[in-house]
């Protein structure tokens, strides 16, 4: 491979998802990340209990991510053929796990913020 630029990658992802959906997904990812950063900055710490509860959901996110990839492609567990395949599965699981943890953390935080104080 000669060179891969960010522009090339973006062009490919736009084609893969469709331009609209790709940027909606990017915006969602950015919004959730910003929400997480905002919450941590606002509270000046990670709320341990909330984070722990969020972490419980990590394996679910990991399993969902891998299952999703196998569901939408004509492939499955039995097609893992080499170490790089296993690493790819672990990477997808890690992305799903971390993403889900952050999402649940943010949702819990939002629920706390939005809950009427009595």
């Amino acid at each position, binding site marked *: *491979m*000669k*060179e*891969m*630029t960010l*522009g*090339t*990658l973006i*062009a*490919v*992802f*736009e*084609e*893969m*998802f*469709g331009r609209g*959906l790709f940027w909606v997904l990017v915006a969602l990812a950015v919004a959730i990340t910003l929400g997480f950063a905002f919450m941590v900055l606002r509270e000046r710490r990670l709320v341990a209990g909330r984070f722990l509860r969020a972490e419980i959901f990590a394996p679910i996110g990991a399993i969902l*991510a891998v299952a*999703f*990839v196998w*569901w*939408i*492609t*004509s*492939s*499955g567990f*039995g*097609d*893992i*053929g*080499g170490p*790089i*395949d296993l690493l*790819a599965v672990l990477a*997808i699981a890690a*992305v799903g796990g971390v993403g889900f943890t952050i999402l649940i953390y943010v949702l819990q935080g939002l629920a706390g913020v939005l809950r009427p104080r009595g």
Partner: protein
Amino acid sequence: MNLADLGPTSRRAFLGLAAGGIAALGAAAPARAARVRTSARIVILGAGAGGAAFANRLADRLEGAKITIIDGRAEHWYQPGFTLIAAGLKPAGYAVSRTTDWLPRAAEFIADYAAEIDPEAKTVTTRGGQRVDYDFLIVATGLSLDWAGIEGFSTEMIGKDGIGAHYHSPEAAAATFRALDAFTSKGGQALIGRPATEMKCAGAPLKLAFLTEDMATRKGTRGNVSITYAAQSKALFGVPIVAEKVRMLFAERGIGVAHEHVLKAIDPARKVATYATPEGDKELGYDFINVIPPMRAPEAVMNSPLPWADKWVGEGWIEVDQKTLRHARYPEVFGVGDIAGVPKGKTAASVKWHMPVVEDHLIAQIQGREGTETFNGYTSCPLITRVGRAMLIEFDYDNNLVPSFPGLIAPLEELWVSWLMKEVALKATYNAMLRGKA
């Protein structure tokens, strides 16, 4: 599950390995240099992968140029998808879009085929009689499938009585799947092979042999199915190290090989195929046969002064320098894609690597200087060995393997990630290439 069942949105909704797709197509990053002012008249013959992508790149790079694209085909076909259609994993529509969807607004499109190319007078005349003058000509016509080269065969037979021909069209690839599906349910003898001419994607017939074996295995009918691969030479692939690997895999999967067998005729009534061999003609019986005919330059190119005179005689590939892709006798003519008379690279991945080279030399010529980019013969073939696994094979003119991810994705290993590249990332990368963005 079958991806055909999914709507376009859910199909797209996948965080795939785009980087891998770029590798499979060969990631030559587009050089976004300053726009160049010129009044040059540039004619691009063909609006397929090479023609459309090059038109978009030129439209981005040049200001004031008159770019004309000539192609009579209304549909654009994503040909790397034909194998997936023939395997029943995608519908015929997966590979079909409109030619005009991909062309830059700044270019003029003539919806007709070229009938005559006169590189002395620097003109192209269409079948409809329109004469177009050029300062630079990009020949990106692709190639012609010479169906008449197989005696007894006609394209109406595709999909019937155990006859497949997945190179013909998306519809024919779908019909080939129907024939293959019926065959692998019932059992019998399959004959799969390749022509002796240069061909596009020399890996595709090998993939079909692997997929036939896989289909029968999954149905539990493998015991009733016999597969013979008719190779045109003593090797199974042009790159020796890959040929050896395929030989081993064929042996492991019980796929037989008939070397130096070139299909010349079929008799559908008797279900017999005739092959030219060094010992004379040989007949082999079949219950399923996939016909891939000889491949040649389109007639307008073949009848022009552009082809090699002493190489690939009768095939018509144009005489270009294998590093610059510039015509040896007409310096204002370049070849992009399958039509280029070079020893490797009739794949979409090669097209991607042709483009920065031709762009560099063309623009250098416009500016009165020498170009510097060179093409090394890069060809890529995600060689499917079963549904769910492939080998990401990339090589150059010298038969060296040139893996995009050395030490990470082994080229001669059957891998799931290589399959994902083929199934998920390749079409997106191809489309981005068509738009001149990858």
